[in-house]
């Protein structure tokens, strides 16, 4: 798309034209060329790692392909999708993913809001408290998982606490009934800080005049929170929920590290299933079809998030 208006090597010399003149002035074409030069590296990289893979992946999703066997992908149209949609495994993984994402949100969003309310204001140590509360958000998920691996282990902190109150030990990550819940608790802890900061920004945007008006009108703290602050936080809460949902729907590393999807696939979220399908069973076609179905799910959520952000205005 680089327009060739000038032989290479000559520098773009500014002409005595007004910059606002439209059309093919030398300035415009110099701009156009500079624009393309500046985006070119990014465009090439994105094409190679995003655009081409999406197209290629879509093609793969219409084929049956096992790279271990000889021969390339065999085209079989929508059969892969039909097979996936008919498999119990797939729907089980969707169900686990939904539980995992919504369970995490149910714990993390109110928790983050409570934390934000707690550290919104000026009192000794508040900056430090905010920073420490935010910390889990910055720490790599695999590192967090390692810490919780110990917390959940047989001799770990949680079993000790259970023992203190006279309860028998729990195999948090090894028991089918508790594994998913244990992962959810960890992930909610990890998610608290990030959402807290967003809520904090929202709280600080609440006009002081409204709060004063509420207190003049005799609203107590609780009623001010319930009827003044919370309604103002609706757009930001929607944003937090949708963005987290998109992210949580793609959970993988903590699950791979802590349970590998087990025991008895009780924590096999969709990403885990796709990984296994592709890199354990080498069914790349089916795995791609699943990935695109997840894509559809997430795209719906992303669409929602953009709508929400547009309505919420610029932050």
């Amino acid at each position, binding site marked *: *798309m680089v327009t060739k208006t000038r032989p290479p090597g000559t520098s773009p010399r500014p002409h005595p034209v007004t910059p606002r003149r439209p059309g093919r002035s030398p300035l415009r074409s110099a701009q156009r060329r*500079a624009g393309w030069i500046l985006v070119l590296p990014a465009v090439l990289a994105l094409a190679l*790692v995003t655009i081409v893979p999406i197209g290629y992946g879509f093609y793969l999703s219409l084929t049956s392909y096992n790279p271990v066997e000889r021969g390339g992908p065999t085209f079989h149209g929508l059969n892969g999708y039909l097979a996936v949609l008919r498999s119990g495994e797939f729907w089980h993984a969707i169900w686990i993913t939904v539980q995992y994402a919504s369970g995490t949100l149910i714990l993390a969003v109110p928790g983050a809001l409570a934390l934000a309310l707690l550290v919104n204001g000026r009192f000794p*140590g508040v900056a430090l408290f905010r*920073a420490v509360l935010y910390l889990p958000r*910055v720490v790599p998920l*695999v*590192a967090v998982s390692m810490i919780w691996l110990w917390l959940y282990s047989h001799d770990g902190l949680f079993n000790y606490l259970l023992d203190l109150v006279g309860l028998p030990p729990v195999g948090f990550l090894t028991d089918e009934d508790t594994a998913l819940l244990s992962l959810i608790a960890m992930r909610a802890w990890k998610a608290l800080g990030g959402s807290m900061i967003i809520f904090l920004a929202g709280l600080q945007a609440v006009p002081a005049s409204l709060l004063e008006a509420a207190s003049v009108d005799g609203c107590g703290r609780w009623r001010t929170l319930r009827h003044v602050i919370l309604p103002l936080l609706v757009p930001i809460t929607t944003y937090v929920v949708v963005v987290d949902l998109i992210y949580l729907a793609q959970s993988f*590393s903590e699950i791979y590290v802590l349970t590998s999807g087990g025991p008895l696939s009780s924590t096999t979220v969709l*990403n885990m299933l796709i990984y296994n399908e592709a890199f354990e069973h080498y069914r790349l076609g089916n795995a791609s079809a699943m990935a695109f179905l997840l894509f559809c799910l997430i795209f719906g959520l992303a669409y929602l998030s953009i709508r929400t952000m547009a309505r919420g205005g610029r932050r």
Partner: protein
Amino acid sequence: MSALIARPAAGRRRALLAGVVTLLVAMPFVWMVSLAFKPKTEVFSYPPKLLPDQPTLDNFAYVWNSTNIPGAMANSLIVATLTVAGNCVAATAAGYALARIDFRGSRLLFTTVLGSAMVPAIVQLIPLFLIVKGFPLAGGNDLLGHGGNGLLDSYAGLVLPMLVQPLNIYLARQYFLDMPGELAEAGRLDGAGELRIFWQIYLPLARPIVATIAILSFTGAWEDFLWPLVAVSSPEMQTLPLALSSFAGSGVPQYGALMAGTFIAIVPVLVIFVAGQRHFVQGLGAGGVKG
């Protein structure tokens, strides 16, 4: 909120409550540090003690001498540095062009960038794996990409998918969009070329967003797991999260050493976090599609 916390006594009570809650939330980190400095015999002692009786560096020595974690740390640093460089240069430049230069196709390009920011990593994973494995003339491959392992097990292969991230282009664009256009006009009047206007006028003023992009790229690369898991097969090329996870998965976990390794993995992010706190928050507020 000032109306709600005007009384100093209430402020003190709140500080106390906030302190207790913060301590509870930070508990896992406290235990990580505690275990990392405990001798082997104390790690499994019952009841678990918060403070080691005889603090030791044995766990760190073990991690340093007997695991691939130090090498993995070097790998992670290399990958993260390359990722930061790629994003600071290419994503910033692209963001600038999309914001300040009106060229044909720029709107379509921006839509594409936004769109690709929403594609979940798993969709690209399988094709990307095949592309990287079949990269022509690399890793024993012929011109058609057959015969070898391509860029698998190499820094290039590890970095490639993260080299330019759509989200960073988006952040840069939003930042440059808010800057005044008069600067460019003034530059043009003084005879500066378009690239010089970017390089010498706008870029120096955009340091905050470059810092934000650097931080986001670093932490993103530092914690990336799924792609390295697929792209690396030899222990020598493992990144830190991979090395930690394979160390945890090899036999009975040695929690002391594992926590020492985890501690090591957290320190760089911690340093960056303390140094660039406001950039963290800035980037977070502007776009959180990818965590």
